[in-house]
C-alpha cells in the first residue's frame, strides 16, 4: 500500500499480538478492508457493487455446497433429485434451491453494474489495467460456471442449452468436432457430460475466489479509483475503509439483499424458463431455446451473423461472440484518453449511454423468437457494439475536448466538481498535458 498516512496495524490484545508475530493474517485484513486501507472519500454508490459481488459469490458457494449434498449427478437421477428430493423433501430444500438459482442471476446483475461502472469511470486505465483484466477473467469463469450449473438439473433447457453451446466448438475448422466430442465425452450431452460439468461447477467457484483475491490485491497497490478519476494527493482526500465504507457497504447490501429476497421468496421462477421443469428429452427440441437472461446479449450477437462471407455464418457468429468479450481485455490500450472519468468526457459520456441502450437491445433480441425484423434490429445493435469499442472509442479519445478536472478530490468534495475550477476556453491542449503531468 503506497499511502504513507494509512493507519498501521497496532494490535492491543495480547492474543492478537501473539498471532500477528506468527501469521500476519489480521494485519493483512486490516490493511485491506479495515481501518488501515485509505479510500477516496468521494466514492458514490456505483462503488458498492464490488463488495456486493463478493457477497453473492459467498451466497452461491454456501448454498451450492449444501445443495451438492443432495444432488445426484446422473441423467436418470438429476431431475428428480432437484425437483423431488430437494424441492419437496429436504428441510428448507426449496429455499436453498431458489436462493442458488436466483443468486446466480443477482451475481450477474451486480457484476454487470460493476463492469459498467468501470467502463464509465475509466477504472480500466493505468495503473489499474491488471485489475480490469483479472476482472474479465472472473467474468469468463462466471459464465462457464453458470452454464455448467444450468445443465445440472437436466431439464429441457439444460440439455438443449448444452447442445447449442457445445456446438460452438464444432464451428472451429478441422479440430472443432473432435474438440466438441472431447468436451462432452460423447456425441451429445449425456452421462459423461453431466458428471464432468458437476465436478467443474463445484471447482470453478473456488478458482473464482482465488482470482477475486488477486483482483483486490492488484487494486490495493494503487488504491481505489474515484468518480473524478483524479488521483489521491494527500490524507484529506481519503477515509479509512472501516468504519466509513463498511457502514456504507453494509446498509446498501441490506437494501440490495432485500431486493434479492423479494425475488427469491415471491417470484422465484420469474427470471427462468418454464421449459426447464420438463425433463430433458434428446428427441424433442423445445419451441425456443433460450439461455438465461445474463447470456442473452451474446446470444443475440451469435445469431446476428446470418450470411456466409468467406467463412460460414456459424463460424462468424462464434468468432464475434467470443471477440465481444475478448476485445474488452484490450480496452486500456484502445481508449488512451488521459482523462479517466466519463464525468469530464462529454462526448464519451454520450456514447457510453448509447452502449448501455445497445446492450439492453441486444438482450431483448437474444430473448425474442427468430423473426426477420427482430434479427435485423439485432444486426444493427451487434454492429454498434463492435464499432463502439473498436472504432468509436479510439476516435473519441483522440479528438474529444474533456472538461477541466478538479485539482484534487477534497476540492471536488467540498465544492462540487464544477465549482473550484475556472473556465478554460482556449488552453485545452495545455490543460490536458497539465492533467497528465499532475497524475
Amino acid at each position: 500500500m503506497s499511502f504513507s498516512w494509512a493507519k498501521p496495524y497496532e494490535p492491543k490484545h495480547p492474543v492478537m499480538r501473539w498471532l500477528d508475530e506468527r501469521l500476519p493474517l489480521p494485519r493483512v485484513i486490516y490493511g485491506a478492508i479495515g481501518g488501515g486501507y485509505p479510500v477516496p472519500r468521494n466514492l458514490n454508490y456505483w462503488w458498492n457493487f464490488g463488495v456486493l459481488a463478493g457477497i453473492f459469490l459467498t451466497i452461491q458457494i454456501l448454498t451450492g455446497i449444501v445443495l451438492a449434498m443432495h444432488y445426484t449427478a446422473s441423467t436418470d437421477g438429476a431431475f428428480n433429485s432437484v425437483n423431488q428430493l430437494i424441492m419437496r423433501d429436504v428441510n428448507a430444500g426449496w429455499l436453498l434451491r431458489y436462493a442458488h438459482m436466483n443468486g446466480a442471476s443477482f451475481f450477474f446483475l451486480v457484476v454487470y453494474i460493476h463492469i459498467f461502472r468501470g467502463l464509465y469511470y475509466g477504472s480500466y486505465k493505468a495503473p489499474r489495467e491488471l485489475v480490469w483484466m483479472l476482472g474479465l477473467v472472473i467474468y469468463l469463469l462466471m459464465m462457464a460456471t453458470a452454464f455448467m450449473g444450468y445443465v445440472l438439473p437436466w431439464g429441457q433447457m439444460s440439455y438443449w442449452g448444452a447442445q447449442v453451446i457445445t456446438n460452438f466448438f464444432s464451428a472451429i475448422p478441422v479440430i472443432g468436432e473432435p474438440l466438441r466430442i472431447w468436451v462432452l465425452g460423447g456425441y451429445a450431452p449425456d452421462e459423461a457430460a453431466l458428471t464432468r460439468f458437476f465436478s467443474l461447477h463445484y471447482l470453478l467457484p473456488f478458482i473464482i475466489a482465488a482470482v477475486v483475491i488477486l483482483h483486490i490485491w492488484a487494486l490495493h497497490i494503487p488504491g481505489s479509483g474515484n468518480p473524478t478519476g483524479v488521483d489521491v494527493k494527500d490524507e484529506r482526500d481519503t477515509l479509512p475503509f472501516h468504519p466509513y465504507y463498511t457502514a456504507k457497504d453494509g446498509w446498501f447490501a441490506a437494501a440490495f439483499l432485500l431486493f434479492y429476497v423479494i425475488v427469491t421468496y415471491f417470484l422465484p421462477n420469474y427470471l427462468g424458463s418454464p421449459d426447464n421443469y420438463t425433463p430433458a428429452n434428446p428427441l424433442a427440441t423445445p419451441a425456443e431455446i433460450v439461455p438465461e437472461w445474463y447470456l442473452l446479449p451474446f446470444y443475440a450477437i451469435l445469431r446476428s451473423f446470418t450470411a456466409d462471407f468467406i467463412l460460414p455464418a456459424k463460424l462468424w457468429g462464434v468468432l464475434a461472440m467470443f471477440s465481444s468479450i475478448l476485445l474488452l481485455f484490450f480496452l486500456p490500450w484502445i481508449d488512451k484518453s488521459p482523462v479517466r472519468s466519463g464525468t469530464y468526457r462529454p462526448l464519451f459520456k454520450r456514447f457510453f449511454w448509447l452502449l448501455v441502450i445497445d446492450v439492453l437491445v441486444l438482450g431483448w433480441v437474444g430473448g425474442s423468437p427468430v423473426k426477420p425484423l427482430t434479427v435485423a434490429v439485432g444486426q444493427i445493435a451487434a454492429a454498434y457494439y463492435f464499432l463502439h469499442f473498436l472504432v468509436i472509442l479510439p476516435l473519441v479519445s483522440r479528438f474529444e475536448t474533456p472538461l477541466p478536472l478538479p485539482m484534487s478530490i477534497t476540492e471536488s468534495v467540498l465544492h462540487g466538481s464544477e465549482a473550484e475550477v475556472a473556465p478554460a476556453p482556449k488552453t485545452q491542449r495545455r490543460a490536458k498535458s497539465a492533467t497528465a503531468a499532475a497524475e
Partner: protein
Amino acid sequence: MATKAQSAEGPAVTGGDGEGEGLRRRDYLKVGAVAFAGVGAVVAIAPLFVQMAPSADVLALSTTEVDISKIQPGSGIKAQWRKQPVFIRNLTPKEIAEADAVPLSELRDPQTLEERTLPGHKNWLITLGVCTHLGCVPLGIGEGENRGKYGGYFCPCHGSQYDTAARIRQGPAPKNLFVPDYTFTTPTTVLIGSKGKK
C-alpha cells in the same frame, strides 16, 4: 469482501471513533444495527445446517410394517427397518424357559425377557440384527445358521454370543441386541419404529 456479518471482523479491525470511553449514547445506533444484522446472519445461516437433518423421504421410512403370520415357532425372519436388518423371531416355549432361567447377575447387560418383549407377546423377539460390538450382522436367524453356544445368535466377526433372548453372554459386545420400539397393529402385523397410538 466485507460480508454482512460485520461483527466477525470486530476484534481485529476496530476503527472509527472508539476512544476507549465505553459506549456513548450515539454508539447505540451502530451497535444496534450490527446486532440486528448479526441476528439476521444467524437466521440466514440456519437453513444451511437444518438441511442436513433427515429429509421427509427418509423420515417416511422411519417405520416399517411387517407381516409375521407366516413365522412358525422356532423360526424367524430378517426384515429391514431404517435400512438396517431386524431379526423377528417366534420363540418356542423351551427358548422362553431357557431365557427366564438365567440369573440377572450372570448378564453383562441385565435384562429379563419380559423387559425385551411386549406384554402378551412374550414369544415374539424383535431386535436389530446389528452386533453391539462393531456392527456386523450376527448369524442365527436363518435356517441352519450357527446359533452359538447359547442357542441365540452368533457374530462371526469377533465371536460375540447371544442367548435365546438375544442378550450378550460371551464375547466383546457390550450390550444386548437393541430392541426397537414396535407395536402390533393386528395380531399378525407388527409396526416397527413406533410405540403405537397413545
